[in-house]
């Protein structure tokens, strides 16, 4: 027993020591997406970053840890996580002129509880060979019977699709959205599966002609010599340019309520919303910067400019639970 206890102590001791010039991050975003930015931040400021990466359950962890939580900052990959953190009162106000200057009001919480870092557009990819570019396409069209057996998408319950369905409810109401979902389901070429990358691959191979996907996946695939062919087989379409504009989701950040290093967390947010990091986000991840005037990556710029849906994110977010219910009701994934 003694040996076991000693082993325990030995293992516990491997946890890092926490100095004051650190910022501790819980990140839904993957290491290879943000590590270069964090490394540069450390180089600039001398503040060390410690990160726990996970795609699920981090909010629950912050909640359970309560006032002893070591997390100073949570980085999310979609807006509903930001708003859930706020709803659970796990955040504190981000008070910074530089953040306010960098990020337009539409991409900040009114009370300063969260801030968006990048924008991601829910696009529709179409097969270059079989269907061509569709500049007038709308999300509503995806339920049109003329696309029967032609659409591919990932799970309806994925945050990106949930955000889109919530925005449909915000614009059209519950009954009409349910009808739309049933229409889209009837048009699917296969059961929802895989990620956005897999959908583009399926278009390339002729399994479907249209696919839902976030734009940065296309950029990532073009960078990969094995996957370039898939990306080159599709057109990227920004839906609803003829009316309200394309649905935008965001990645973002909050400072946790019980942050032990709130000043460092704020410094990191200021850094991440400023031109240099915004530029890195744009070029590394092919995402759209939230700070206006920051140059897009040349590839992203080549896709052209587009109109964004201007409905505020917290308005859309209200319908997220209802969106999930509708997806279960129409058995979208089954």
């Amino acid at each position, binding site marked *: 027993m003694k040996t076991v206890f000693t082993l325990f102590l030995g293992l516990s001791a491997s946890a890092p020591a926490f100095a004051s010039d650190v910022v501790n991050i819980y990140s839904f975003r993957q290491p290879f997406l943000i590590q270069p930015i964090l490394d540069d931040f450390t180089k600039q400021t001398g503040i060390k970053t410690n990160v*726990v990466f996970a795609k699920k359950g981090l909010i629950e962890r912050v909640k359970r840890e309560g006032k002893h939580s070591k997390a100073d900052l949570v980085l999310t990959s979609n807006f509903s996580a930001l708003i859930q953190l706020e709803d659970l009162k796990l955040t504190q106000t981000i008070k910074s002129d530089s953040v306010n200057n960098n990020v337009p009001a539409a991409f900040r919480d009114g009370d300063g509880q969260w801030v968006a870092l990048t924008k991601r557009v829910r696009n529709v990819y179409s097969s270059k060979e079989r269907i061509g570019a569709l500049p007038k396409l709308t999300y509503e069209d995806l339920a049109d019977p003329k696309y029967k057996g032609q659409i591919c998408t990932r799970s309806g319950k994925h945050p990106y699709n949930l955000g889109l369905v919530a925005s449909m409810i915000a614009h059209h109401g519950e009954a009409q959205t349910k009808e739309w979902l049933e229409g889209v389901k009837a048009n699917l070429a296969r059961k929802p599966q895989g990620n956005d990358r*897999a959908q583009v691959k399926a278009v390339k191979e002729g399994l479907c002609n249209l696919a839902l996907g976030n734009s940065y996946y296309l950029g990532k695939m073009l960078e990969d010599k094995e996957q370039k062919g898939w990306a080159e087989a599709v057109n990227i379409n920004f839906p609803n340019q003829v009316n309200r504009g394309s649905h935008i989701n965001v990645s973002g950040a909050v400072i946790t309520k019980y942050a032990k290093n709130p000043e460092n967390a704020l410094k990191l947010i200021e850094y991440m919303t400023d031109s240099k990091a915004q530029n890195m986000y744009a070029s590394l991840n092919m995402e759209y910067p939230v700070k206006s005037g920051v140059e897009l990556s040349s590839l992203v710029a080549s896709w052209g400019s587009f109109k964004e849906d201007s409905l505020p994110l917290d308005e859309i977010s209200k319908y997220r639970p209802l969106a999930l219910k509708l997806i279960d009701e129409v058995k979208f994934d089954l």
Partner: protein
Amino acid sequence: MTNKFKLSKWQLFAWSTGLILSAPLFFLLFESLQGSSEVFSHLWDTVLWDYITNTVLLVLGVCVLSCAIALPLGWLTAYCSFPGKKQFEWALMLPLAMPTYIIAYVYTDLLDYAGPVQIALREWFGWQSPNDYWFFDIRTLPGAIVMIALVLYPYLFLIFKTALREQSFKLVQASQLMGLSPWQSFFKVSLVLSRGAIVAALALISMETMADFATVSYFAVSTLTTAVYDTWFGYYSLTAAAKISGVMLLLLFLALMAERFSRRNQSVFERQSSVNSESLYVLKGKSAWLATAFCSFILFIAFVIPIAVLINYAITYFDKAWNVEFFSYAWQSLKVAGVVSLITITLSVFVVFYQRVAKQAYPLIPGRLASTGYALPGTVLAIAVLLPLTLLENTINTALEPYNLDIGLLLTGSIFTIIIAYIVRFYAIAHGAIESSFLRISPSLDMASQSMGKSQGQTLRLVHLPLLRRGLLTAALLVFIECMKELPAALLLRPFNFESLATHVFQYVSDEQLELASISALFIVIVGFIPLYFINRSMEQRS
């Protein structure tokens, strides 16, 4: 008096183990009683029955397929001789070292519509679209059954083979003398005598299958596990998620009860001789080649193909996939796996021993309680473990406040929590393997030891432990490998800057970029070889 006192010592230990290891589950069930059940009734009205049906079909399918693969393999390698037998004996255990989500990824990549196999077929035959031909869809329920069974069958293979080896060889010889054909002897003697071991292995396989998240979600097969995730992280309802976990445990409990009921009057004790160096059945000609072909086929699809694909990825993407930090990730993983194996084995030996010597009612309960954690999907388990631990931490911190002391997150902020979670999750594996070994030790040995004036502790140490050696090793191996592969709990519970091989690989798999983590994935498999080597060597020495 002495005897009574000692019994209560075992009792105390077993019950504390049972209660402590099941505490997370009770906290979770308590949580399920909180708040409203609106979300749960919505799920009940819409998709829950689909989830339950899928789960039951998945578990049954995996069990049936595992039996179809592992029972013949176990019997062939234990009792027969045929070309390549020695190599197959250890090689057929190798798939165990492969995480399910990796094999699922590899096969999807190969067999998908957009994969090389179908592309080649389309090129050869000039097919243009999916309407021109039929090809099975790998991302389906049957596909998931095959993937999971290919990784989990070694449980049954290993435990069944161990059981056959520990059975008296004479019984099979006797059955032969009485005119039973090899097939009849297999069904009437070997299977019947190993039933306990088979059921223990199938229980493990069922629990592991129910808890699987990565494969089913990758294959878009909605099960109760995926429902727990959706509910928790979609509806943000811990209450409803906990209720669904309750449904899962109920299914598991019913299955285990049915099994216990069906063999209530059966007891089998055997521990006399192992298989002699010469085999019972020397296969010749066609049957020898058939045996070799069957073993090769399983080995090929469960191990050789996935490994070949990984190696291919590793070569193609070497520049991006090579990373010197593997060694530190591997070391972190090894440390945790080693400590957890040691602790689970120790705990289960005592708990199973208590089951054996207890004169009180319900001696099986502590072991069953302690095993419940295995059925919980990793992420659910992670939160379930956090519930009591954060409560404990907060209580300690509050108590220390007047003294201006603060231990902070000493437990949940360190590697301690991952270790606890793994013990809760994998105790069942150790318990299952050790229980089935214990059952084959005749109680007459205990009586003999007692009549020689040995205490129960001495009996355990001097009589049981030496006889259990192989069962202990099997148990340790299984727990160790599972720890190496475990993912969701590690993702959520790890302290800052802790990375295991599995978490590292999964970051890429979740983005469908296994290529970039192919070298780490190979590392997981290679590190899994180490315990496989040791157990195999020990088995060879015994026989």
